[in-house]
C-alpha cells in the first residue's frame, strides 16, 4: 500500500513539476438566498 501511494506522488510531480495552485474543489452550496 505504501509503495503504491509513493508512486502516485511521484507521478504527480513528474506530470506537473511546477504546480503551485488550486487543483480541485468540491464546493458545498446551499439553496437559493
Amino acid at each position, binding site marked *: 500500500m*505504501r509503495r503504491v*501511494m*509513493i508512486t*502516485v*506522488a*511521484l507521478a*504527480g*510531480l513528474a506530470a*506537473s513539476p511546477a*504546480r*503551485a*495552485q*488550486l*487543483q*480541485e*474543489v*468540491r*464546493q*458545498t*452550496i*446551499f*439553496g*437559493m*438566498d
Partner: protein
Amino acid sequence: MRVAVQKLDGVRSVAVSLNDGYADIVLASQNAVTVERIREAIRRNGFTPREARVRVSGTVVRRGEQLLLEVAGSGTAFLLAGSPEALERLAHAAGGSPVTLDGTVPESQRGSTMPLLLRVADGPGAELLEQRTAGVGTLTSRHGLM
C-alpha cells in the same frame, strides 16, 4: 451558476449537483483561481457557498507560530490547521518544498481579508507521506478527495 464558475479563467470543468448540494470544479494545470473567486461567482448566482474540500499545491512557510501554504499561482495563502501530527509533518516541509494537500476550507465571511483556513485532512487513512528526491520534498495525503 455552472456557467458563471466555468467562465472563471483557469477553470477546466464544473459539475453541479443541486440535489446533493455541491459543485465539483477542476482547475487547469496553470491557473490563478482562488476559493474566494469561486465562492463569489456562486454568491452572485444566488447560492450560499459553505465549506469546500480542496486539493491544492503550494509551499509551506512559517509565520511565527503559524504555518501557511502559499499558493504561487494565485498569490494567496491558506492558514494551515489540523492534527498536531499532520502539522508537525508539514512543518518539516517549510522552507520552499512543494507540497500537495487535501483539506477542508470552512465557510468564509464575505469580504474578509483574513487568510482562508485549510484544515488538512487527517484521521484514519489520511497518513501523510513524505518523499524526498534530489532535495525536493513532497507531501501528499492518502485521504481521497472525490
